[in-house]
């Protein structure tokens, strides 16, 4: 999560300062009284009967904060929300992880969390697409599907007994090739309806993992094996994946056009700039940064320059103020 070190000269510093001040004044946090540090007591109406949530504890009848953050109140629940915390997986989150270990009947993935996640063999579609019991042969062939170091997109299943289990049953999950994996702070990626985005102009796939891993890569059509080859499935010989034929196909597909690679790098740099500035990463903000960089005719590596970062900050402040006025 290394940030870009910005060397700002005096005018750029002033401009950035001004932008940050505008953003602060626009922000929806009503008063700074609601931010607490550890062992601050939180004012509650004791007659109502208060539910003490995360980040609070009872001390001599007073509700005291145990974390630094903002106090949130929902009806009777009072809790402290930290601003920079580790990613906590919730059911249905889309996450991207890297395989760390191939274990018995499961893969262990690193998902930027306090513990590694498990992807069970039974939670993964077989390459031939048939739904069947996983046999010992399947276990021995686990490496044909995923190996150590592969980047995988999956969904969080019910996290039970302190273990994080993932599932990758749909065609849109699975191994990710031909692209870049970026690490940003987990709080910059908010949970939304859609995490899979496709930038049509550039033919680039964008996956925003809730755990702070963002994938920018070549566009892949989600193939549904069941629909494509109904004839072949009936033939038992085709069930075993034929290594030679797959590798020939893949060699054709392996070559990514230079144009696409440029766009992938540009999108990745846009995400890096946004994460350095600390702005939320959404499809709109990434599109804006890319458009800004193209309209300014910047080379891809020039996107890390201090001038561009200040421009991005100013544009973002403009965008937020205009969206507020619309409301």
């Amino acid at each position, binding site marked *: 999560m290394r940030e870009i070190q910005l060397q700002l000269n005096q005018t750029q510093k002033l401009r950035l300062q001004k932008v940050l001040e505008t953003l602060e004044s626009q922000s929806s946090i009503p008063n700074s009284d609601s931010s607490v*540090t550890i062992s601050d007591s939180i004012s509650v109406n004791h007659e109502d009967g208060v539910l003490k949530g995360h980040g609070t504890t009872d001390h001599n009848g007073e509700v005291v904060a145990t974390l630094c953050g903002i106090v949130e109140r929902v009806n009777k629940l009072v809790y402290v929300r930290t601003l920079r915390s580790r990613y906590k997986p919730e059911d249905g989150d889309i996450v991207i992880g890297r395989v760390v270990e191939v274990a018995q009947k499961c893969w262990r993935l690193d998902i930027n969390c306090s513990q590694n996640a498990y992807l069970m063999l039974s939670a993964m579609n077989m390459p031939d697409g048939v739904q069947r019991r996983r046999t010992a042969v399947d276990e021995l062939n686990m490496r044909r599907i995923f190996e150590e170091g592969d980047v995988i997109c999956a969904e969080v299943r019910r996290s039970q007994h302190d273990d994080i289990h993932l599932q990758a049953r749909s065609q849109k999950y699975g191994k990710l090739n031909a692209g870049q994996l970026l690490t940003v702070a987990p*709080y910059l990626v908010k949970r939304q309806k859609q995490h899979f985005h496709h930038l049509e102009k550039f033919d680039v796939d964008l996956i925003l993992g809730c755990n702070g891993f963002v994938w920018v890569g070549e566009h892949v059509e989600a193939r549904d094996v069941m629909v494509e080859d109904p004839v072949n499935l009936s033939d038992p010989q085709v069930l075993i994946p034929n290594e030679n034929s797959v590798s020939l196909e893949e060699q054709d597909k392996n070559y990514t056009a230079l144009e696409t690679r440029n766009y992938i790098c540009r999108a990745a740099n846009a995400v890096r700039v946004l994460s350095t500035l600390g702005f*939320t990463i959404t499809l709109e903000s990434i599109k804006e940064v890319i458009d800004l960089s193209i309209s300014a005719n910047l080379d891809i590596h020039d996107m890390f320059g201090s001038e561009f970062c200040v421009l991005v900050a100013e544009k973002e402040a403009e965008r937020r103020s205009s969206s507020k006025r619309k409301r």
Partner: protein
Amino acid sequence: MEMDRPDGRSPNQLRPLACSRSVLHRAHGSATWAQGETKVLAAVYGPKAGTKKNENPEKASIEIIWKPNTGHIGQADREYEMILKKTFESICIRTIYPNTTTSIVVQVVHDDGALLPCAINAACAALVDAGIPLRHLAVAICCSVTDNNCIILDPSKQEEEKAKAFAYLVFPNTTVSVVPEKSLQAGSDPMAHGIITSVTHGAMSVDDYLHCLERGRATTQRLSEFLRKNMEPKSTREASKAG
């Protein structure tokens, strides 16, 4: 009793404090704390699954690794590890994450007196940075008694070596309420808050020790203010930027 300190400070004056958080990118939480020339870097990793054999699995356990600036780990370092472990076990709320281990790695960058208090402050800031729930913050200072029975705070290495006795004291920080009127009430009754750790070296009289406690507790107010200011602006700014 007037005391001439080599660097010209008054007996109650602390050295300039500097604290920065999130210095290490791969650690879950990290902080550096500098008091004058003494500088310590602390990193927190955790909570990680599993506890060691001797530890109670119903509670979170804390593991301290002390790394001196030169040489191998010796007996004195093991003693520091034990002191820090006991201090932080009383601060952290151990029932929240049972059967986990939180590791705190303390690296001494430069030692110029009052090393243990500096380390405790750094580790506390690192725990806050990692987002681990704490009951209260630990504020540590060093008081030393000189040959002419004068009590000075935050001695440098020279002063520590010449002193008759010195004590490392760790207090919980003073509470400030979100409702401003209440904080005045809390400030007027400082003795009610208790003490977390006290480590003494050398021989001093009981009266001297009680004076040290008083002076130390009065200084915790200043240190708490510094800690609070250090933690607040960053959080509100980040929240407004993230939108």
